[in-house]
């Protein structure tokens, strides 16, 4: 029984670590978005009459880039709220089947 609770603890800890690692995915899009907007500002500076088109395309491009970060966010939240339930169910069934085999 102690082994099971130890395994559960390790599993919960790893889920938390995994969620933290998944949120690192937010760094890349942030850098990319920053560079894209900086380049778009230069473009608007060169051609002020195209400001509306450039802004519209830039917003859509940023939203697409941001989706990558959102994938990480979704995986992180699923790891915190959904994965422990699934893993603990798998762990319990494994322990029960092992106990049956030993008996």
């Amino acid at each position, binding site marked *: 029984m102690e082994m099971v609770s130890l395994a559960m603890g390790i599993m919960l800890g790893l889920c938390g670590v995994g969620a933290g690692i998944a949120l690192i995915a937010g760094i890349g*899009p942030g850098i990319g978005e920053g560079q894209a907007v900086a380049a*778009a500002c230069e473009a608007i500076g060169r051609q002020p009459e195209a400001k509306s088109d450039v*802004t519209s395309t830039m917003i859509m491009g940023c939203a697409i880039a941001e989706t990558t970060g959102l994938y990480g966010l979704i995986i992180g939240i699923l790891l915190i709220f959904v994965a422990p339930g699934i893993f603990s169910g798998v762990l319990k069934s494994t322990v029960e089947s092992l106990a049956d085999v030993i008996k």
Partner: protein
Amino acid sequence: MTKLDPTVKKETAYIAVWVIALSLGMQAVFLLLRRWALPVVTGNLVGAVCAIGNFLLLGITVAKAANGPADKVALRVRSSMTARLLGQAAICALAVGLLHTNVYATLLPLLFPRVGIAFRPLVDRKRGKTAETEAEGSDLLD
């Protein structure tokens, strides 16, 4: 209070329409699967508000960056993106953890704006065709 850029307003309205339409579709799927309940509705509401709010804030940040001085633009956008992402994570985690909303109904609407953007070229093409036919009609009338 500063006025919203018309481009930001237009794009946010477009995304909001897509998020609402896809949210209704998601509710229908939950209903068909016989999993429809109050947590699904509250989760969908939280997710949809998060998705639209995130897009609106993104638009405001980008429009401000485009209108404002060019220095530190990249840094401002990067910090805005981090703040928005962490805010979304906090809101969704609080909704799921405290309000006990459905996890999938809360998280899926965050990806709906991406679907709307993917269909953008089709919508633009249709709009272009309509504008062309309208222009041809006005030419014929002239």
